[in-house]
């Protein structure tokens, strides 16, 4: 039988061991619970995040100026930039705005593409979770992209009372997800990045995604090899807008002497590409959505799109606004796309994306949404 000395020692040991484990656990606390991934078609903008990097000024100057100028005074825009000097430069070229611009200086390389860095999981107990990929694609050969890997952590440090950053168990770009109030549509490229890398198969992947994102997941079977918001957007009311190259073709000038936006390698109206856009539309319809098609002109490089779904939706009560890309020298195409949005009940706020589409993105790719004013956010405000 153990003697009293041994029993006392064990009791003391249990207490000390638990204390040590508790201390270590406190250094790595359990992350707070997270709500569902933020819908892109509900609520009014509350906090947005953009990036500004001076070497990309020519790419984003016009887009940022028009977008930021159009925002209301109750919107806060966090500007992630390498230095405070970069933030000052942005303030100078944007000029007077009604929204609040706040810098987050990070002191490292970065790109201007905010959307892909993280996804926001809705606030729980007043805290928003930024979920980021374990690594950025091509970071090994792309220093700015390697810097991008750190940005969700930078934001969480800057807004530590209300935001935490967490690493996902799967690889993704934020733009791979298209989210509405019920469903997350996921581009096929996400499965390709993860199958037999972080997940054994498609079924496990969908289950894990649904648990992490707290919404129904629809993994697109076939789609153009690009981010989801380049070819589709959910506008609410169970309606999906899907790009259609065949509709865009009608707006291509018949003469080369007529100015038109440059498309790398020429426009891509191939049946292969059309098939991929149509496959997205078909799957959305099969999922129960009303599908509306909108003109789109993809370029043969597979990356540059004249697209009108890469937009931002803002609801203010019963009014619905869309910040919609337009492209110089494509007036008829712009007008056709605008008419479709207006027919859907949106007030259009056009934003010039002529200089961004050549870099493979448009407005949605540049702007990430940290929070929207919804009922959940009212609770968050009350919690604060």
């Amino acid at each position: 039988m153990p003697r009293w000395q041994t029993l006392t020692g064990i009791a003391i040991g249990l207490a000390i061991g638990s204390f040590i484990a508790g201390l270590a656990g406190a250094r790595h606390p359990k992350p707070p619970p997270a709500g569902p991934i933020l819908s892109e078609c509900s609520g009014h903008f509350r906090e947005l995040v953009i990036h500004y990097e001076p070497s990309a000024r020519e790419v984003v100057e016009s887009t940022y100026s028009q977008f930021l100028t159009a925002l209301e005074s109750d919107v806060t825009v966090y500007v992630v930039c390498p230095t405070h000097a970069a933030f000052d430069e942005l303030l100078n070229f944007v000029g007077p705005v009604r929204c609040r611009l706040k810098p987050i200086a990070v002191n490292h390389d970065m790109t201007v593409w905010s959307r892909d860095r993280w996804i926001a999981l809705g606030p729980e107990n007043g805290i928003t979770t930024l979920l980021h990929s374990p690594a950025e694609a091509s970071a090994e050969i792309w220093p700015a992209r390697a810097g991008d890997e750190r940005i969700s952590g930078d934001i969480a440090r800057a807004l530590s009372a209300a935001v935490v950053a967490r690493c996902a168990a799967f690889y993704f770009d934020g733009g791979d997800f298209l989210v509405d109030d019920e469903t997350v549509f996921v581009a096929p490229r996400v499965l390709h990045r993860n199958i037999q890398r972080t997940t054994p198969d498609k079924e496990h992947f969908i289950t894990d995604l649904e648990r992490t994102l707290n919404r129904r997941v629809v993994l697109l079977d076939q789609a153009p090899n690009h981010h989801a918001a380049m070819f589709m957007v959910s506008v609410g009311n169970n309606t999906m807008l899907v790009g259609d190259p065949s509709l865009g073709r009608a707006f291509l000038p018949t003469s080369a002497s007529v100015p038109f936006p440059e498309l790398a390698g020429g426009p891509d109206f191939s049946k292969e590409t059309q098939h991929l856009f149509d496959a997205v539309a078909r799957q959305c319809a099969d999922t129960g959505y009303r599908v509306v098609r909108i003109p789109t002109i993809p370029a043969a490089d597979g990356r540059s799109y004249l697209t009108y779904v890469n937009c931002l939706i803002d609801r203010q009560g019963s009014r619905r606004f869309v910040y919609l890309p337009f492209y110089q020298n494509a007036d008829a195409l712009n007008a056709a796309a605008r008419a479709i949005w207006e027919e859907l009940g949106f007030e259009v706020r056009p934003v010039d994306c002529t200089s961004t589409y050549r870099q493979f993105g448009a407005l949605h790719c540049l702007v990430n949404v940290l929070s929207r004013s919804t009922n959940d956010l009212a609770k968050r405000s009350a919690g604060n």
Partner: protein
Amino acid sequence: MKTKDLATMGSAALVTASLTAAALLIHPLHADNDTAAKEVAQPKLVANGIEFTLVPKDNRVPQAGDEPELVLTALNTGSTTAEASIEIIMTASSPASMLSRIPTRPEKLWQHPCSLTLKANETKTILLATGIRLPPDQIIQVTMQPAKPEALPGVTDAPGEVRNLVVFDPTAVVAQMWSTMARQQEGTLVTAR
């Protein structure tokens, strides 16, 4: 209290504290299920009961200018003879510019069909010489997928087809990925595969 009693208590406390702390830290009571990505050590494609894996010859990461050789291993895990057809596709992509949103669309460098028949529990190993010289500053990806996935209309390598559109099957598995960044002495292994 005697010195011997104190020594006994101290020893028991030390051992118990160590074991308790270790157990709690290894298996936290409130484990977070959303931890960092758990990487699959060796990706494999399973087609008709045959497991395929693919590694570079001698496990050496090929560099820019190399003509990579790949070792394909097929293992029939079933109890009867099985046959499977797969294709292996090597693609390359790179940043179009340091300002762009994403790398260029992957372009096909090499494609190889492979059909094998294996007896129960049999393993076959095949050396595949790609015969293509790797370009510099690219992300190289080698993907295995079942042969003849649902074909897209017009997606072929017919003469005159220059678009080289790569559409992967939903079950496609990236077997290897590495970069051929020119300023490095050796290719950089992007994934631990």
